[in-house]
């Protein structure tokens, strides 16, 4: 029974506020700006295209400057790769999830390193013990890589290995060593490694990614793969992580290209020609919620990269000029408030990626602001891709938004803005200087503050956050992903056991070779692969190269070299 007061209160609670209902009826958008702040007009007309030659500025898909896509027939030749990122607990746990997604129509394998592995720490490192497997998979030694890849035909599948830091060199060594032990010819291996250590300093991995070591090891991987693994994509320059700092779409492209050019310059300095390595250079791009801006950004990036490769670097092979990219939908656009709404955000972002002619796509899981993806969350993300591919018809035609007065105009404006920012970077002394002097850090911080202010002040609306917000959820729909604590314990024990039982004499010889190669400036990959086969661990391989380059053996400066 309710008291009269309580009844009145209840009635009030359910009463519709008709004033705000009417206000909603007449409401119009508060802002006519794009996500990155471009003012846009009410309508775009043929006037915007006057004096602009189609073939020169846009061109058909598959033709220079590739504004409309790198293949003439785009998805009619082949769908984009549906590649969901997986990294959870131990190599065995991750292997299980890989199988689940492969069973349900995923078309590319994609595994991600955890923070301990990215930092170059073995599972038994004092800093690693509490965090093994929490944000990805830790690979401490070759047996872990063997477990991760168990029973999978490495000569047939395409595997994307997400290790971004300098440890990508170790990841490649471990993958190659396992493949060779199983009798595969590495010339036939297909897939990619993220291997963009320069950008990773901005993701909290500065101890593992000093600039010179990043360039050295990043380019060792690129050079080794170029010479020995013709089907392998040896870097995925990560524009995505930069965008997640809060920067705008044009900044994402400009800063990402700045970093990409550091690698390109170094590979040329090492004597490779642009057309030898250019065709296997790839990128990782964000798709945020502003559909047209994201499409325009990617079209502008394709045109800019093609011109850069041709005009600045003298590429002759059209494949060197093609901007190949994977998309990761914007994790930072997702919020824990009313979490099912994230599925809708992810869908629009994935749509932008597909309309842009993406080569490979990862859709975030709706539950990512709360935890690692649950199996159901992961599957739902894969289904989002499949609905796009099989139900919507958006992949029938190459660059379906091409020729839209608005999208073409926005593509041009983003291109102009990117060039302006690239010039700014030149003015501070080039990208290496921008990094060294922390100019880039300051840009990130400035933009992150702006983004927060926009939301706090209601200039940028996020449903469930600063508009239509409701009581906070007390449950996560579809549950929460937990990492089994025994996974980490087993991982730590196995690493200790391996260190106790391996043949130390053989290992010492191989490590000596690695150290000499690193000191004398030779490519470290061959020696790393051999040392891996004699059970050198991730931390030991990295530590040895670090010491040869004048850095502490342990990035966390706790353990000492045992060789």
């Amino acid at each position: 029974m309710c008291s009269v007061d309580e009844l009145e209160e209840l009635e009030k609670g359910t009463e519709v506020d008709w004033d705000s209902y009417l206000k909603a009826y007449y409401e119009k958008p508060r802002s006519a700006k794009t996500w990155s702040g471009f003012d846009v007009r009410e309508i775009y007309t043929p006037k915007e295209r006057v004096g602009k030659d189609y073939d020169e500025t846009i061109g058909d898909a598959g033709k220079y400057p590739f504004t409309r896509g790198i293949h003439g027939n785009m998805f009619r030749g082949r769908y984009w790769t549906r590649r969901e990122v997986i990294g959870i607990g131990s190599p065995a746990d991750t292997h299980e999830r890989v199988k689940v997604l492969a069973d349900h129509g995923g078309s590319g394998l994609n595994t991600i390193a955890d923070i301990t592995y990215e930092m170059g720490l073995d599972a038994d490192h004092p800093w690693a013990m509490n965090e093994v497997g929490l944000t990805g998979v830790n690979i401490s030694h070759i047996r872990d890589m063997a477990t991760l890849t168990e029973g999978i035909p490495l000569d047939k599948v395409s595997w994307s290995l997400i290790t971004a830091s300098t440890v990508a060199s170790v990841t490649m060594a471990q993958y190659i060593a396992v493949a060779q032990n199983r009798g595969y010819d590495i010339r036939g291996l297909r897939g990619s490694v993220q291997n963009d250590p320069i950008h990773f300093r901005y993701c909290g991995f500065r101890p593992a990614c000093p600039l010179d070591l990043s360039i050295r090891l990043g380019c060792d991987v690129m050079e080794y793969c170029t010479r020995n693994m013709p089907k392998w994509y040896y870097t995925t320059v990560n524009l995505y992580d930069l965008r997640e700092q809060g920067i705008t779409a044009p900044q994402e492209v400009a800063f990402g290209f700045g970093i990409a050019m550091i690698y390109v310059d170094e590979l040329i300095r090492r004597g490779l020609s642009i057309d030898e390595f250019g065709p296997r250079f790839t990128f990782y791009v964000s798709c945020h919620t502003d559909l047209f801006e994201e499409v325009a950004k990617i079209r502008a990036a394709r045109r800019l990269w093609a011109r850069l490769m041709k005009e600045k670097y003298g590429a002759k092979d059209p494949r060197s000029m093609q901007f190949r990219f994977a998309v990761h939908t914007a994790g930072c656009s997702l919020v824990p408030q009313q979490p099912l709404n994230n599925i809708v955000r992810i869908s629009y972002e994935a749509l932008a990626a597909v309309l842009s002619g993406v080569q490979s796509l990862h859709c975030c899981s709706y539950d990512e602001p709360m935890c690692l993806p649950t199996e159901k969350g992961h599957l739902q993300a894969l289904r989002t891709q499949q609905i796009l591919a099989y139900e919507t018809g958006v992949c029938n035609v190459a660059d379906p938004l091409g020729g839209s007065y608005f999208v073409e105009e926005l593509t041009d404006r983003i291109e102009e803005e990117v060039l302006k920012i690239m010039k700014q970077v030149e003015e501070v002394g080039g990208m290496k200087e921008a990094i060294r002097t922390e100019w880039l850090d300051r840009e990130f911080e400035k933009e992150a503050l702006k983004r927060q202010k926009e939301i706090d002040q209601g200039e940028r609306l996020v449903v469930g956050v600063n508009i239509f917000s409701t009581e906070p959820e007390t449950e996560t729909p579809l549950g929460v992903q937990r990492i089994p604590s025994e996974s980490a314990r087993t991982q730590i024990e196995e690493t200790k056991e391996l260190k106790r039982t391996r043949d130390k004499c053989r290992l010492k010889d191989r490590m000596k070779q690695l150290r000499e190669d690193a000191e004398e400036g030779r490519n470290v990959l061959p020696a790393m692969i051999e040392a891996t086969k004699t059970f050198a661990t991730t931390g030991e391989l990295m530590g040895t190269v670090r010491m040869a380059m004048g850095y502490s053996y342990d990035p966390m400066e706790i353990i000492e070299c045992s060789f």
Partner: protein
Amino acid sequence: MQEKRKIRILLAKPGLDGHDRGIKVVARALRDAGMEVIYSGLHQTPEQIVNTALQEGVDGIGLSILSGAHNTIFPKMMALLKEKGLSDLLVFGGGTIPPKDRERLKTMGVGEIFTSGTDTRDIVNYIKGVLEKV
């Protein structure tokens, strides 16, 4: 007239987690709201954080964890604070933390857990609400 002492807050990133966009934005918001903020930088052990809190004589500690390590790091922090006689310090946090874990951490004495999508003014008001009452 004696000026009122500013609220002093230590913001810290424990463990290996490198996501620092959020904590830097929060640091700025607290400063703009008139607090003194010490930001620890990345890769701090719970021991280092508690020592800094002692040395700096702070009124509260905010921990940012987006790596999923909250269920081990917060309890360790709370135990250490107790050991050092700092149990009455305000401890709050932020990050990628599921609703049930937020509730569990609060029963351990963590004041509040903020997630992404939080208005920075809510964090300011929360801290002022707790510390200015004292």
